[in-house]
């Protein structure tokens, strides 16, 4: 792992175990947002873009791309702590979210290590309307110097 944080550096002020990251909402993801993501990502699966295709599969509307929602975790984490490097992000998609809906991200610190380099494990959730769990995720984040500490 190449970050600016090397063993022996002074540990930054990282949050304690159990610390909750302030929740934040993303979306709603309307059809235009899904089209924009389809172009940007190349994932032009009509399941996400065409209500008739979604209906043929028994869905009430087009589901939001899972990776579009997963992409929200990076700005969520980095707006909370810009001095972190996301070394790992893994997730399971639990339930679909449909066009026009948004998600609420939340998270907490479930593990903290100060050596050999400062690292946190974050448990993350995306929930849809009615508090429906949409994504459960885990991130390993490393502290890296932003140059603003000294």
């Amino acid at each position, binding site marked *: *792992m*190449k970050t600016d944080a090397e063993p022996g550096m002074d540990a930054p002020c990282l949050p304690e175990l159990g610390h909750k990251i302030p929740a934040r909402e*993303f979306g709603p993801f309307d059809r235009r*947002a899904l089209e*924009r*993501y389809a*172009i*940007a*990502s*190349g*994932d*032009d*699966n*009509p*399941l996400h873009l065409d209500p008739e*295709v979604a*209906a*043929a*599969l*028994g869905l009430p509307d087009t589901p939001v*791309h*899972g*990776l*579009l929602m*997963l*992409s*929200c975790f*990076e*700005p969520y984490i*980095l*707006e909370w702590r810009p001095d972190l*490097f*996301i*070394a*790992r*992000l*893994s*997730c*399971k*998609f639990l339930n679909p979210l449909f066009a026009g809906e948004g998600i609420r991200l939340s998270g907490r610190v479930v593990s903290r290590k100060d050596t050999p380099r400062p690292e946190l494990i974050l448990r993350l959730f995306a929930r849809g309307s009615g508090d429906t769990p949409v994504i459960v995720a885990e991130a390993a984040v490393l502290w890296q110097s932003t140059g603003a500490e000294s």
Partner: protein
Amino acid sequence: MTGAAEHAQQGPAGPNEKGTDNAPVRLPPFKVRIEPADVAEFLRATSGHPKHHRVPITFPVRWLALPEVRGLILRSIGNGFIPVHEGQNFAYERALQIGADYTVDIEAFRTPAPPHLTLRMSVVTEEGEICARLETVMRIVPALKPA
């Protein structure tokens, strides 16, 4: 994901339900360049923060939509089935850089009961240093017909 559903009828065979899955299939490594305009477009589409000037960690999923990768997915899924994205993992050794060239290596393998297709991607610098590894897990389900 990856636009496979619309082509699900074209594949040669469905998931192997007898538990004798295919061996991993590896594509020849291919080169990619991270263009600034592509990053900017991706950031706009994903609620990213353009002022960070960094490559989003989910950006490599773009390469799953390249024709050779899409073809591999479609062949692996088979006729009359669609992929449902079930899980995703990104692991970074170092951040990807805007404007840099990388080599991408992808392999796919199926597992039975229930049938899944897993894609594994590695992203390597021109100097051969590993930057990122991705794993995409898709459940393979029958494509329902309209009533």
